[in-house]
């Protein structure tokens, strides 16, 4: 259901203000969403003054700097710092992206950092992605081949392999799914762009033999057709992929397939 307002326990309050202690002239204000599960209080926005003269170029560097030098209680996920693992997906300046690949110079004014939208918050910038992973599991993202031998290589032509370009690169960071208003309102049933892009990846794989069954599975009012081409997903994807187009392709396949 569409619920525009946040529930009472999720209303964001003004938090602490951390003044700069380094005496730097080149400061930026960074507003970070904080929620401590042990406090029983509502989430708050803490503001940090960060010395930009001694800070590398990406938003993740700012977060690391805050955690190392200003406030060690800040919690966020990060791992590879090179846009490959997808751990540091968050809402930066109103748009979902990976903190490790987003340059802070591109953001005007104060830098606002929130967790990925419309998720249950576990702590600070960490959202609960269990629902998304369950949906990912539900599309059975592995090769299904019944007739071919299990010991022999299944040959794929170069053309068929090329069809997977733009689909296999997904790192499941959830930037797209959590940017989608349809997924916000119907996240329990609508699969969302990330999972549908993966569904598409297995539907078009020439080696897979369960194509019809896979199509049938997503051919449900809520699982697929809640995509209204808002394109928040495509504009959010840090890998430059196009989930909206993949969903449109599945819709086309369903319209032309005889299922």
């Amino acid at each position, binding site marked *: 259901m569409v619920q525009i307002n*946040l529930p009472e326990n*999720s209303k964001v309050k003004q938090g602490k203000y951390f003044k700069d202690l380094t005496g730097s002239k080149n400061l930026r204000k960074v507003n970070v969403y904080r929620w401590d599960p042990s406090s029983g209080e*509502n989430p708050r926005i803490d503001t940090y003054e960060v010395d930009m003269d001694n800070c590398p170029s990406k938003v993740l560097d700012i977060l690391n700097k805050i955690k190392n030098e200003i406030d060690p209680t800040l919690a966020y996920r990060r791992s590879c710092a090179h846009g490959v693992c997808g751990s540091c997906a968050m809402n930066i300046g*109103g748009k979902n992206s990976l903190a490790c690949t987003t340059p802070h110079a591109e953001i005007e004014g104060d830098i*606002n950092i929130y967790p990925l*939208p419309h998720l*249950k*918050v576990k702590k600070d910038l960490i959202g609960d992605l269990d629902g998304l992973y369950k949906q990912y599991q539900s599309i059975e993202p592995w090769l299904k081949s019944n007739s071919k031998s299990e010991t022999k290589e299944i040959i794929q032509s170069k053309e068929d392999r090329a069809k997977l370009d733009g689909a296999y690169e997904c790192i499941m960071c959830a930037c797209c799914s959590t940017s989608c208003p349809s997924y916000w309102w119907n996240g329990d049933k609508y699969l969302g762009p990330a999972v549908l892009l993966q569904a598409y990846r297995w539907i078009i794989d020439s080696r897979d033999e369960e194509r019809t069954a896979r199509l049938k599975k997503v051919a449900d009012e809520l699982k697929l057709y809640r995509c209204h081409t808002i394109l928040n997903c495509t504009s959010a994807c840090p890998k430059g992929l196009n989930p909206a187009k993949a969903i449109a392709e599945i819709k086309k396949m369903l319209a032309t397939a005889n299922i």
Partner: protein
Amino acid sequence: MENKPPLSPHIQIYKWHISSLVSISHRITGIINIIAISFVCLLASLLVFGESNYEFINLFLVSLIGKFFILGLTWSFSFQILSEIRHIIMDLGYGFELRTAKITGLIVIFGSIILTIAFYLIGKNFF
């Protein structure tokens, strides 16, 4: 004690862009069209009940509210039609690149305004 986890902010903080604006406007103009066109049909069917109703309808249409109503409906209808064409093209699988989607979105927004002005001028016998 574990507390109930809050829901992270969503529509309150998410940045708008052309495609999301066109998408939500498509819905809003759709609802406006249903209500407004039903109202026009109601007015038209009043004519069945006699001449005197014509006066009433005319009075409404030349009033300030009536003019606003006509122009508003012209705009929301133009917007809906153009946006629907954009949707059909997307249903065929085209126009999903961010640049293209932005351009077609801008065409819908400015096209609807241009169409409204054009209809207004046609109504004024400008051409």
